[in-house]
């Protein structure tokens, strides 16, 4: 069959989103954070509904109430753990419990987010099990320590395979079919950039650092510290910059790999053509614009990034759009609306 390409289009504008964002922010602050659950829904709705493939749009169906209850549970759980952690025996129990609870929470969160997302009025779903999440998110990262992190690409691939491979749109399953070589490419790019940025920013501070390493007691010598203040600050910023920039590059490479290797049942596939320099440029200038305007350019930055990513993404359909739609069978029942509020736990919460 012939392939047909459908670009992803993003129709949102910075003007429009600015209004939504500032009203969200104002209401969230005035309600001491409670409205932020509804604000999240409204933001997601704006971005999803403005994203289109072949004339059909995405949508976000969670309610503010669901998100709020999920957040309250997480905050209460966090406080309970903090209190329990003060009792030595309870601490051990909490740590063991975490091994079971964390993957369980993660699966519920992935499932919730999938089920409240739709494209063309067909809901996504997530079929992963807690055991699998335990393996890829806790056990493998622990084992990789013994390989001095050299096997990290295998762990990363296993994670993505787990997360993507258990998703479906309606009943059409997604699969990830990526070779390990690509993941090692991203991994070495990360390491290389860390080393280069570190070398550039540490080069002038090197004598000072070497002196410190050879005689750690210099840390107590105030004259030494005072004299080399700027170099030490520069080295400190350099270390942070190295990891931030390498992280951005890694994210861009991995995105291209993942989209390129994802298949949707029926021989349909995705493609991402993000350019690394362009992605780094947008990330850095976005951050700069936000800082210089005390946050007021945040909506502009988010829309700019969403538009760039949409522009660099396409769906390659096996046949024409009708073949693709015909392959997607919605799951039956009043799907998605009947799920309990506990499903709204958002593990991405930066508490």
């Amino acid at each position: 069959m012939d392939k047909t390409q459908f670009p992803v289009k993003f129709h949102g504008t910075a003007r429009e989103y600015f209004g939504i964002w500032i009203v969200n922010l104002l209401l969230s602050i005035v309600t001491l954070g409670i409205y932020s659950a509804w604000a999240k829904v409204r933001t997601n709705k704006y971005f999803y509904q403005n994203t289109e493939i072949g004339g059909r749009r995405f949508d976000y169906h969670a309610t503010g109430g669901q998100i709020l209850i999920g957040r309250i549970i997480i905050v209460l759980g966090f406080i309970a753990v903090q209190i329990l952690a003060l009792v030595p025996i309870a601490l051990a129990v909490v740590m063991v419990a975490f091994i079971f609870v964390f993957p369980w929470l993660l699966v519920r969160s992935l499932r919730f987010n999938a089920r409240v997302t739709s494209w063309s009025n067909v809901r996504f779903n997530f079929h992963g099990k807690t055991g699998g999440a335990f393996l890829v998110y806790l056990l493998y990262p622990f084992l990789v320590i013994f390989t001095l992190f050299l096997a990290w690409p295998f762990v990363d691939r296993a994670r993505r395979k787990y997360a993507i491979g258990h998703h479906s749109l309606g009943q059409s399953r997604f699969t990830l079919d990526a070779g390990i070589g690509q993941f090692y490419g991203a991994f070495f790019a990360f390491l290389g950039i860390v080393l280069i940025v570190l070398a550039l920013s540490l080069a002038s501070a090197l004598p000072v650092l070497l002196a410190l390493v050879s005689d750690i007691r210099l840390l107590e010598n105030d004259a030494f510290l005072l004299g080399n203040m700027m170099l030490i600050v520069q080295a400190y910023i350099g270390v942070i910059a190295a990891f931030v920039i390498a992280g951005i590059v890694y994210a861009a490479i991995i995105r291209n790999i993942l989209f390129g290797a994802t298949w949707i049942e029926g021989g349909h596939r995705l493609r991402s053509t993000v350019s690394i320099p362009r992605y780094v440029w947008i990330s850095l200038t976005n951050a700069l614009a936000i800082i210089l305007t005390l946050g007021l350019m945040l909506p502009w930055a988010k829309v700019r990034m969403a538009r760039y990513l949409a522009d660099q993404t396409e769906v390659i359909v096996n046949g024409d759009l009708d073949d693709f739609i015909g392959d997607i069978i919605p799951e039956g029942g009043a799907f998605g609306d009947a799920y309990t509020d506990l499903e709204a736990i958002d593990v991405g919460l930066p508490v």
Partner: protein
Amino acid sequence: MIDAVLYTAPGQFTVTDDSETVRASGDLAQLRFETPIGRAPRRVTLPDGALFETSEHAALDALNPSRGAKGLHGAEAFRPRLIGFVALTLLAAFVVWRYGLALLVSAAVWITPPQFARVIDDQTLAVFDRVMLQPTTLDAAEQARLQADFVRLAEALAASEAHTPLRLEFRSGPIGPNAFAMPGGTVILTDDLVRLADDPDMVAGVMGHEIGHVTHRHSLRQIYRALGIATLVGFLAGETGPVLEAILLEGNLLLQLAYSREHEFEADAFAVEITHRAGFDPEGMIRFFEHLTEMGLVDPMPSWGSTHPPHDERVAAIRAQIAALPAR
């Protein structure tokens, strides 16, 4: 997906396709309208779960009876009055940051039981003892003398200030002349600090400063404040991207340091007050700072990057306060 038209008559609706065939019909009240958002196509959910999508905003506005939702959408429109919203948001953010956060922190500190804080002390001290501190080498007589001075200071506390039982511990270690207080009332002096001081008034000033941290519950406040800021920023800003996240993290650290410097001044003021009340000479603190400076023990960090304000600023504040003390 088919092209369709939605017709309405009073109380009724009909959806027809290209060939004028009726695909759905029923009671108007069964239609579920969504809150409009930006200029994205509007969605109407039909009773059978099918979705009717249209960009005819005006026609749907006439149909949709929900006023609250329209109010939200109207408020979000890009109009000059958004400038007012920006100003209001900045004001609200400032009020929350300046007063709301302090209120929350005070409430959290107030409900924290003293036993809870004492457990934090015991565990922190146990960790310090394992990784960094050694037992004291001060002789028993010296320890007893310092303990007596400490009790004298503690007994000078007013009833409202004596909310946490205090204890004094001695340790030696590679941290130089140092003293610190933990939230549960544990004050630690290093041997180097005791040896550095020539007279009891100097050590009394240091102990008074540390008791001030406990009385004002500074460490608890810092813990709760850091937690509160992280939660608020997480809820309000949402995802900000990797670059901004790193910057926010470091910025938060700098703000935290400013907060810590404020606490040092507060503890200094408290120390002047309590040493005076307990019959020590508050000038001992000034002598202590002069001594530190003479020995070259100054903070190498510029003041914005330090937990403590520079010595000269602290000495100036202490001097001004002593000058204003009532004669005993």
